[in-house]
């Protein structure tokens, strides 16, 4: 069959609607009934700001989150872990710049147990001293693991260079060796009492809810969650960019066979008054596929990299535009010059063909991207944390279809001003000389 078949337009699609309830304790409950999704995804979000962490104890929000299921008033840590596993339950908890997010996945039949255990973890964790010490030690080991990974090390240096050093965003969300060293059990107990509670919280449950009595189950569990000392967290504010962010920082890894490149600048969050819709399209046409501008040259023409990706990374407040990938050490200078040239040239404008391909990709992949209970629950929980309306996802898809080339051009020029924060993780002795005349701004080298 050599005749290329025609493509039929996709059917109209909207993001699954949630049924909204208010639990007795004021918690907002959002239910997504998704037939055929037999593993239920339960999410709890408690808005807050990392800036609320006590002075000197950065990372305490993350550590508190990780300790929620390490022992409760009702169950010891090992007993709790065993109960979760025997009911097929998986629990994760972490924080972003906008608050606490706890996620639970569990087969349909075990929802009552999962809801009960999750409520215990949120309301009555006891933070045994031994578990606190273990989790803090685990974070120290994780810091070493992150330092050893070129991509993680680059991300950390980007944050430190891009954002004002007085700003919380310039330092790791989960804390540093120094701040972790100052955290005590008492501080965790106090942080939990003040910052983890039902005020302003949202619970999301997605999956096949047939026969689960979800509303009754959640009313009796998370609806009875009480935290008398809970103070609602402050609204996060967008981080301030560093005044001297337009520069090159080389993180020295002697003998490295590749250089990890990360190029960044401040970007919008999803509530930007200019509209979010153009940004995922820009990320796609600049660096979202092997045919995007970056990989068309750096991968498919030059063979310098396995792939370079560009993406907008919205926080709850503010965000960044990051281009990253790794190239073999010998071509670092040339690859970086090409990469910066492509990012800068894109300010000249995009083509109608690029607009169409990006709009079609982002718009037509939506049904598949939101096809599972966990993907739907994650998106609705993100909307809750970001304070966005529940029809945001569907309205954003409608706005996407209305985009013109000038919308892409305007949005790109607003973000990509040419003031790049460039971080290179690689063998400084060989790559620094190769940067001569190829990069704007000063070059500094720091230890790994």
């Amino acid at each position: 069959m050599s005749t290329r078949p025609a493509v039929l337009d996709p059917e109209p699609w909207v993001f699954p609607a949630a049924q909204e309830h208010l639990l007795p304790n004021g918690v907002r409950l959002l239910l997504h009934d998704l037939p055929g999704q037999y593993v239920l995804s339960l999410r709890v979000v408690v808005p807050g700001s990392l800036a609320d962490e006590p002075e000197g104890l950065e990372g305490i929000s993350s550590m508190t989150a990780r300790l929620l299921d390490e022992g409760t008033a009702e169950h010891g840590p090992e007993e709790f872990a065993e109960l979760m596993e025997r009911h097929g339950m998986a629990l994760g908890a972490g924080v972003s710049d906008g608050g606490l997010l706890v996620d639970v996945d569990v087969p349909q039949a075990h929802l009552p147990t999962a809801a009960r255990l999750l409520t215990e973890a949120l309301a009555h964790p006891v933070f045994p001293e031994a578990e606190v010490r273990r989790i803090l030690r685990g974070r120290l080991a994780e810091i070493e693991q992150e330092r050893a990974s070129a991509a993680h090390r680059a991300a950390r240096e980007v944050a430190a260079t891009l954002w004002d050093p007085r700003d919380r965003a310039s330092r790791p969300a989960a804390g540093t060796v120094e701040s972790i060293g100052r955290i005590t059990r008492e501080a965790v107990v106090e942080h939990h009492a003040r910052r983890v509670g039902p005020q302003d919280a949202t619970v999301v449950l997605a999956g096949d809810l047939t026969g689960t009595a979800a509303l009754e189950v959640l009313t009796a569990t998370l609806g009875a969650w009480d935290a008398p000392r809970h103070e609602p967290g402050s609204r996060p504010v967008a981080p301030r960019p560093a005044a001297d962010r337009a520069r090159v920082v080389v993180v020295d890894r002697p003998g490295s066979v590749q250089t990890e490149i990360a190029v960044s600048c401040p970007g919008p969050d999803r509530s930007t008054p200019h509209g979010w819709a153009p940004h995922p399209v820009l990320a796609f046409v600049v660096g979202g596929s092997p045919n995007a501008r970056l990989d068309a040259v750096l991968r498919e023409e030059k063979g310098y990299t396995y792939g370079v990706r560009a993406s907008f990374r919205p926080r709850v407040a503010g965000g960044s535009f990051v281009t990253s990938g790794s190239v073999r050490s010998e071509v670092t200078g040339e690859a970086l010059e090409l990469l910066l040239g492509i990012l800068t040239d894109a300010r000249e404008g995009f083509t109608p063909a690029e607009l169409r391909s990006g709009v079609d990709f982002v718009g037509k992949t939506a049904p598949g991207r939101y096809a599972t209970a966990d993907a739907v629950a994650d998106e609705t929980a993100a909307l809750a944390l970001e304070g966005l309306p529940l029809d945001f996802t569907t309205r954003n898809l409608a706005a996407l279809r209305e985009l013109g080339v000038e919308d892409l051009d305007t949005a790109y020029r607003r973000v990509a001003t040419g003031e790049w924060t460039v971080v290179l993780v690689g063998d400084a002795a060989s790559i620094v000389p190769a940067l001569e005349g190829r990069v704007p701004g000063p070059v500094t080298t720091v230890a790994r």
Partner: protein
Amino acid sequence: MPLDYPVHRRTLPNGLRVVVSPDHTVPNVTLNLWVGVGSRHEQAGRTGFAHLFEHLMFQGSRNVRSGEHFEALMAEGGRLNATTWFDRTNYFETVPKGALELALWLEADRHAHLLDALTQENLDNQRDVVKEEKRQRYDNQPYGTALIDVYATVFPEGHPYHHPTIGSMEDLDAAGLEDVHAFFRRYYAPDNTVVTLCGDVEPGEGFALVERYFGGIESRAEEPRPTLAQLEPLTAPVRVERREQVPNDRLHVAFRLPVDGTDELVAATVALDCLGGLSTSRLVRRLVRREQSAVGAHATAWGFVDGVSLGFVVIDAAPDADPADLEAALVEELERLAADGPTEAELEASIAQSERAWLSALASQEERADLLSRYALLHDDPELVNTHLDRVRAVTAERVVEVTRRWLRPESRAVVAYLDASGDADATEAVA
């Protein structure tokens, strides 16, 4: 009780096995192809070739220019890629229903007529890309080459699983156009391929569409050699130690296991869960929670079809811990499990976690399609997606004891230790 995902299958006259599994909850269809060739089929001197070949499948075919496969499908809302592993190569795309025929046409063009568009330039370019992939994912990662050492240590020289899918730089350099031609003619054939459609499509329509685009491709696969006999467990421990700049000492302790598709492998997986696959596993309770001599302990089993599977435990040492003590603790726990068997709670936890993981995988159309292709290609039985959990639930404590005594004996272990060399004068030295 088995699950009830619909599974319809048919074999076309040219030998192509087709599976259709309707699911109308999302207006998408996943097209997933498994070709019966992976790194286990590679010849000495050409390791990494199956994967390099997979990259070339995106560089154009008779009616499709280089890069067009990605470009055309992504512009229609397709999400797609391909992967290579020991036993197979797979190609997949999830597209809105209206783009299914385009996807089938593009796949059929490259699976039938790749060689028409093959050039030295494309081969050289993708060789460079794959070498960067190797550097990024293996050479420039802490512990990135540990599993390569595991394969080489636990499987004998010359065995199909002795070398990794990514291959070696030398062998990638040695690959020429004539290798691509020979490989395509030998392995890329309808009678060595499974096509699965999962999603918004009815069986009749799905079979007719696959027939329309793939029915004309001639069968030509060589008769595959019979799979190798089951490899017996190691009879004495084997060790490799590497001193490198790593964040902490890490032990990989590997075992030969029964082949994929056997009840014994399922039971061995439960045994590994009891040791390190769960957050309540024995090694986690003892080393991570109580003694705190490790910061992490994990265990995994990978099923393979050619005479052996792989099981391994990974232990990350705490800063002041002696790896020898960790290894000794593992040996003790192996002996204890072999002597006493799993507790009822361990068995229940392993089964419950397997259930959630399995149902989560099947919740996604993409992963469901992939599992259907897997079971059709490797075991000629796509219905296994519905019956696999029954097999897991049937595992008894006695079976776990049996497989532990036979396959997870301390003397059958292969240990690959990555030890922190910061401070050592001469890093990256191998002591075998």
